[in-house]
């Protein structure tokens, strides 16, 4: 498969899953939490296009609403991380001194915790649910953006246009907002595109461990975990959400590899 086709396929997947997530209430054949113990672990049929799970819930509906949760948690966490990271990074890089020292140490400490461990730890103390999940994921992800934003601010603050603005009497917030931010946006957007797959993967991982949204609200990771418990009797319960996570992560990876180059070219 050539590069262009790969990228098109990736955007196609992303558009399809986003559309499914947005239209979930219209497309879902049944309420996602409606149990029917007389119809447990059924295979695909007209009534249940993807079969039913171990509580007799319609898998198709759960997949649609689960995608809604997975994608919105990913998007929100990424946006929040980007805002926090950019703000903290630009300010600490521009101000320097004590502010920079304190945030620098904090960033180092948070980066020392591997992968989703920080998110797992936060969920352990804050509890489960949509908001804690977004909080935990963005607390994990902002650090990377802060690092990049800080180094950008460090190099930009010595440039003539910043000095000129300061000489004209502009305050810190004005300079950061009007002069540093516009320069930082393309770089950080490229980094966010590359990091989106990681956030989705963390969300799915946390949900897989049962640390995601509260049941009965579905998410792809939680469905995959539930499917693993009945893997031999009804393999599709694990394979469908697994394949969806795989396709979404793959698509975001491809786009994340591709987009930075395009943004840089502009």
């Amino acid at each position, binding site marked *: 498969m050539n590069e262009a086709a790969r990228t098109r396929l990736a955007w196609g997947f992303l558009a399809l899953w986003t559309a499914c997530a947005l239209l979930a209430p219209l497309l879902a054949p049944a309420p996602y939490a409606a149990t029917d113990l007389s119809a447990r672990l059924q295979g695909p049929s007209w009534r249940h296009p993807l079969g039913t799970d171990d509580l007799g819930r319609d898998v198709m509906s759960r997949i649609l609403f689960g995608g809604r949760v997975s994608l919105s948690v990913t998007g929100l966490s990424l946006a929040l991380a980007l805002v926090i990271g950019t703000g903290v990074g630009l300010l600490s890089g521009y101000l320097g001194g004590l502010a920079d020292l304190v945030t620098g140490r904090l960033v180092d400490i948070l980066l020392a915790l591997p992968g989703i461990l920080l998110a797992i730890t936060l969920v352990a103390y804050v509890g489960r649910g949509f908001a804690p999940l977004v909080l935990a994921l963005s607390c994990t992800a902002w650090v990377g953006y802060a690092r990049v934003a800080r180094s950008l601010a460090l190099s930009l603050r010595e440039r003539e246009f910043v000095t000129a603005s300061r000489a004209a009497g502009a305050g810190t917030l004005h300079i950061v907002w009007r002069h540093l931010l516009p320069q930082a946006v393309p770089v950080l957007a490229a980094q966010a595109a590359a990091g989106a797959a990681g956030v989705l993967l963390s969300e799915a991982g946390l949900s897989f461990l*049962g640390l995601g949204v509260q049941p009965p609200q579905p998410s792809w990771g939680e469905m995959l975990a539930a499917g693993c418990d009945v893997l031999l009797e009804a393999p599709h319960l694990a394979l469908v959400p697994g394949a969806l996570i795989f396709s979404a992560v793959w698509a975001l990876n491809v786009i994340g590899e591709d987009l930075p180059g395009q943004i840089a070219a502009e």
Partner: protein
Amino acid sequence: MRRYLLRRVILFFPTLLGLLTFVFLLGRALPGDPVDLMLGENAAPEARTSLRKALRLDEPMLDQYGGYLGDLARGRLGVSLRTGRSVSTELAEAFPRTGELGLAALFMACCAALPMGLAAARRPGGRVDRAVRTFTTAGLSLPSFFLGPLLLLAFAVLWPVLPVSGADEPGSLILPAVTLAVPLAAVMTRVLRASLLTESGKDYLQTARMKGLSDGRVFRTHALPNALLPPLTVLGLQVGAVLTGAILAERIFRWPGMGTLVVTAIKSRDYPVVQGAVLAFALVALLSSLAADLLYAWADPRVRYE
């Protein structure tokens, strides 16, 4: 050299202290009474008082902090609320299991990445290179919690030669270790390939070729030793990722290690165990990135003088 080492080792301690403080604050800064969270709101008053005492929650914050650090220094991590055993016993039981899994995965990943990286870098853009690239992209996109079930299904149904669950049979280690090894092998292959390609343009390789050495010989004996550094550093940094990956793999294959311990502890609000496990994970990650840095400085003299 000595100054670099000293600085790097000394820097380790503030980061460690920061981590310990972070975990300490996390358990106390959050809204709600931790005793309520652990015992539920309807617990007997005596039980609440004794737990409050055991966790030092009746003392001023600074005393709590001092006591917490003192206990850690003496290796006292508290008592599990769920099993009543000491947290250090729980960790001592679970940690070797995860360590075994992680080491097996690291070994497998190295064994796979070395030949793949070499083969791919020999002819960039060639058939082998493209095949290797397909593997690395798939390996990086395939989440362990999907690869795991796929392997489990394959070995339970299609080709039942390996045990797929638990840790009691001799081959039990293989499937969870492979699950962890695949993404690691993908990362290392990529880094090794890139590093070999950077190295292959250098003059000393031209000289070696002009001496009449074969391409394969030039690659293996001249380029490879110099190109190994970046993958080794990545290996050190990936130890943390392997550990957290193990949390997921253990859930799939019912492997009784740190992941199973921490997830059970979180679900039963067993905070002393959660805290102990997080600290253990973080300590290993910190130590292995320290080791990677030191290894790098030892192998590449240029690093030390910067």
